[in-house]
């Protein structure tokens, strides 16, 4: 096959990632190789993935390649079709940013006892694993790649394992990842049981009874939801994502969750086929709950990375809302609207990959130059790190779904999908969908609140601690890495028509139907269903805003006094404000905490510090943990304690067991 074909590019991408993993073994002796060899290789992998993915996405036809690996009767087979092409491109886009950003960030590990080979190596394997998951064309290879992805990311979570919380997080992550993996495996098992064998072709051909189809769907939903971080399966996510090195957090939150979404889409829309609207309802409800709870928990955080991790839960929720809508429409026979939901979900998928990656890189930049993750100790960073500040602002606007950035477009599409509820027969569904849309609206508004808090507390105002006051702008590479993602955020926000046009290939392939109308009126106009139902022209919006700003800033200023005098803040004439008088993140979230108090487990109190001062302490905990997970842990430990009674230590009792077993067996067979 020719080397320029998308698939071979994608394959090369995975190979390059593995290569960078190998290369990083050399960094033990010469740390500088991290900068000079490992990260460039990773970037190359990303670029190849991006190119190959985009080509496949536009090319539209699938190609396969069989590798002499795996089981003797089931060789690994790579397959690059439109869907996997899209996700390859997504992975590539973020990986490029990370690879440009990485060297500067990894420099701090060159001295100190964290091992660079581990960092580079596992990163490479991690990326390769994700790319292979997307490329896999049989359940076995899929599971191998999937678990490799989990394992390597687990090792990256445990990278700085001196800190006990990191170890705990890694353990929890590994455990839940394993549960999820097994659940997925079981789901594939059901499909394989009805089809013949574990190759995806066989599974597509499989004819399932509705009952078994639902079982398979549930297994897949749980399995992929576990990785994607749907509530209530999300508890590992806010623990694990923050403790990894920031560019890894960007990969985990930005890309790995999307790989989970890929798995779900591949499983449900491609392999499973004939849809039932009840699935959609499940996805919709869980998605809506995840979105709302995710953003609410995020609002309660003051650890920046943890906050971002909770926002991943929120955005995954939004994606699943889109998928749920799609399933509902498909299940009730409205193919076109189903396509709309799917496209909205996929659009949000790539958007979230971009801006969440961007935000994590920004958080990493802060961590890198101020060594601070706690927002309560930040402040005024915009003046110290203007570029990071700018890019972070872009991220904030995008994730808050504000025009003209990308986050808005996908949420707009989701709304459009939800608003087509009138097409449905059942009145219940017709009310459910707008309700979900209202939840989505609430989520969006709360997200905006949350990021006003983040940006206002971290980047605006005055510095709240010395290291933050000393913070300096990060290296050029780290800035470019962020800038790349920021630029993409804007581009996807302004040119939605192009993106949707490209995305169209996916439903074409999976469902045999695309959004015929969406781009019917040229690249300027996004008209998902039809022109008079709804239309959105992002370029014009951008132009309009620019125009208005220009108007306000020039026309109105004509004649006005131009110069600006600097002096102390007025603040209603109180004493000039100092850093400690600023509104803190906790204070900012207090009204919301009070309004939604029932959802959190709040421990608030005043304690006597060792220096005799009174200290106010506030802990907001996840209720889910106590509701679901602790009981399981207790049950396991109790069972383990019971079981140890077999091993009493007295040899006579052991003999008794032996005799008893014999007698019982003899009695059984007689």
């Amino acid at each position, binding site marked *: 096959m020719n080397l320029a074909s998308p698939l071979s590019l994608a394959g090369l991408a995975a190979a390059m990632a593995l290569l960078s993993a190998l290369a990083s073994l050399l960094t033990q002796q010469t740390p500088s190789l991290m900068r000079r060899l490992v990260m460039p290789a990773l970037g190359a992998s990303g670029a190849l993935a991006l190119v190959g993915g985009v080509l496949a996405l536009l090319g539209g036809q699938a190609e396969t390649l069989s590798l002499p690996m795996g089981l003797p009767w089931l060789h690994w087979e790579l397959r690059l079709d439109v869907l996997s092409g899209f996700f390859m491109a997504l992975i590539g886009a973020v990986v490029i940013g990370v690879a440009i950003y990485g060297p500067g960030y990894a420099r701090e590990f060159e001295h100190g006892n964290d091992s660079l080979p581990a960092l580079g190596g596992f990163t490479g394997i991690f990326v390769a694993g994700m790319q292979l998951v997307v490329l896999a064309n049989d359940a076995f290879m899929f599971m191998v790649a999937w678990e490799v992805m989990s394992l390597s990311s687990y090792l990256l979570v445990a990278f700085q394992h001196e800190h006990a919380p990191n170890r705990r997080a890694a353990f929890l992550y590994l455990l839940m990842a394993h549960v999820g993996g097994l659940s997925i495996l079981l789901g594939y098992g059901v499909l394989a049981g009805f089809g013949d064998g574990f190759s995806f072709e066989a599974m597509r051909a499989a004819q399932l009874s509705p009952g078994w189809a639902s079982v398979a769907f549930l297994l897949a939903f749980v399995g992929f939801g576990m990785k994607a971080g749907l509530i209530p399966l999300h508890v590992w996510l806010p623990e694990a994502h923050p403790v990894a090195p920031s560019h890894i957090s960007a990969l985990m939150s930005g890309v790995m969750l999307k790989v989970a979404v890929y798995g779900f889409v591949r499983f449900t829309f491609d392999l499973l086929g004939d849809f039932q609207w009840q699935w959609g309802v499940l996805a919709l409800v869980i998605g809506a709950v995840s979105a709302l709870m995710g953003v609410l928990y995020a609002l309660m955080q003051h650890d920046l990375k943890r906050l971002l991790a909770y926002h991943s839960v929120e955005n995954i929720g939004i994606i699943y809302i889109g998928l749920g809508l799609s399933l509902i429409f498909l299940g009730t026979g409205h193919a076109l609207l189903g396509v709309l939901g799917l496209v909205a979900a996929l659009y949000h998928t790539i958007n979230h990959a971009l801006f969440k990656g961007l935000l994590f890189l920004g958080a990493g930049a802060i961590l890198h130059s101020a060594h601070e993750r706690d927002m309560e100790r930040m402040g005024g960073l915009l003046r110290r790190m203007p570029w990071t500040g700018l890019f972070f602002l872009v991220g904030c606007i995008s994730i808050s779904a504000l025009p003209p950035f990308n986050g808005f477009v996908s949420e707009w599409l989701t709304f459009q999908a939800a608003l087509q509820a009138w097409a449905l027969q059942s009145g219940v569904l017709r009310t459910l969908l707008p309700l979900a849309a209202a939840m989505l609206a609430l989520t969006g508004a709360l997200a905006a609140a949350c990021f006003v808090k983040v940006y206002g507390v971290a980047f605006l105002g005055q510095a709240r601690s010395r290291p933050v006051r000393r913070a300096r702008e990060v290296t050029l590479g780290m800035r470019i890495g962020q800038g790349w993602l920021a630029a993409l955020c804007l581009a996807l926000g302004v040119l939605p028509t192009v993106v949707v046009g490209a995305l169209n290939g996916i439903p074409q392939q999976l469902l045999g139907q695309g959004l015929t109308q969406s781009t019917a009126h040229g690249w300027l106009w996004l008209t998902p269903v039809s022109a008079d139902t709804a239309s959105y022209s992002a370029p014009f919006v951008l132009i309009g805003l620019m125009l208005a700003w220009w108007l306000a*800033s020039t026309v109105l200023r004509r004649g006005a006094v131009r110069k600006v005098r600097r*002096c102390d803040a007025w603040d209603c004439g109180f004493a000039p404000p100092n850093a400690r008088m600023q509104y803190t993140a906790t204070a900012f979230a207090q009204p919301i905490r009070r309004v939604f108090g029932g959802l959190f487990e709040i421990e608030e109190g005043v304690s006597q510090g060792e220096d005799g001062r009174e200290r106010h302490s506030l802990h907001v905990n996840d209720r889910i943990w106590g509701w679901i997970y602790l009981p399981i842990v207790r049950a396991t430990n109790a069972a383990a304690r019971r079981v140890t009674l077999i091993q009493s230590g007295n040899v006579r009792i052991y003999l008794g067991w032996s005799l008893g077993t014999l007698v019982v067996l003899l009695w059984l067979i007689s």
Partner: protein
Amino acid sequence: MVDFLNPTGWALALLQMLLFSAGAPLLIAWVKRIKSRLQNRRGPSLLQPYQDLRKLFGKEAVMAHTASPVFRAAPYIVFGATLVAASVIPLLAIELPTTAIADVIVLVGFLALARFFLALAGMDVGTSFGGMGASREMLISALAEPAMLMAIFTLTMSAHSTNLSSVIEHVLDAGLLLRPSFLFALLGLLLVAVAETGRIPVDNPATHLELTMVHEAMILEYSGRHLALMEWAAQIKLMLYGVLLSNIFLPWGIASRLDAGSLLLGLVVIVAKLAVLGVILAVSETVVAKMRLFRVPAFLNLAFMLSLLGMLSHVILEVGA
């Protein structure tokens, strides 16, 4: 969809944008006037807001040492976003090219964008009041947004479109129907509008009493042209909601053809509607007292409930209607 090469359409859009920016202060003045009348005061002249704006534009701007570029950019962004939002709403006529550029959801997006930067500006200087105002503003808007969208969804679902022109057209074509869903939606949207525009009982634009401020707290540090832009934006926002309410629920009189006569009619009608709305607002503000911040959620839940009722009654009572 409307043709975009029709210059009159664009001219009209530009015209109504100007009308918005020009008329907004007048509306405020009108409301103030009625209020003071109701309180047995003479009240300021109807031109007072214009004079205030002129004065502010004339003054030099003062900024705190700690203020960042965001603080400086915010007024322009807020004003711009609000203005663009306003340009999307059919004021005099339906056939607006701009309504195709941005539908009602985008409209909400524009307002959210403005709010986002307003709140950031509040946080920027790092005063306690600014933060307080931002925090409260975001809470209120967060609670208001679902109610607002729910109300709008009620309309859009019966109109099968989120394009404001189409919605209004739909209502016009349907003729005068007494729809329970619209009734509830209207009430819900009214409450939302009160909350979003920072009027009593949610917020009191006339006070600088620290603990009750919301909007004022955020623009506390502004002065000169910056302040002017912020104030102006707020006024436009108020008018925007007024027009939205009146033109969506009672669109009669709005020009569906682009000739001078109907446009003039449209102008007269909209002025009348806004005048009435202003009176209602003034009356309600005189009879109702400002409520504690933590009563606001209840207020907005009521709004949401009303909108939800609207949606339900649409689904249950008006299917196929």
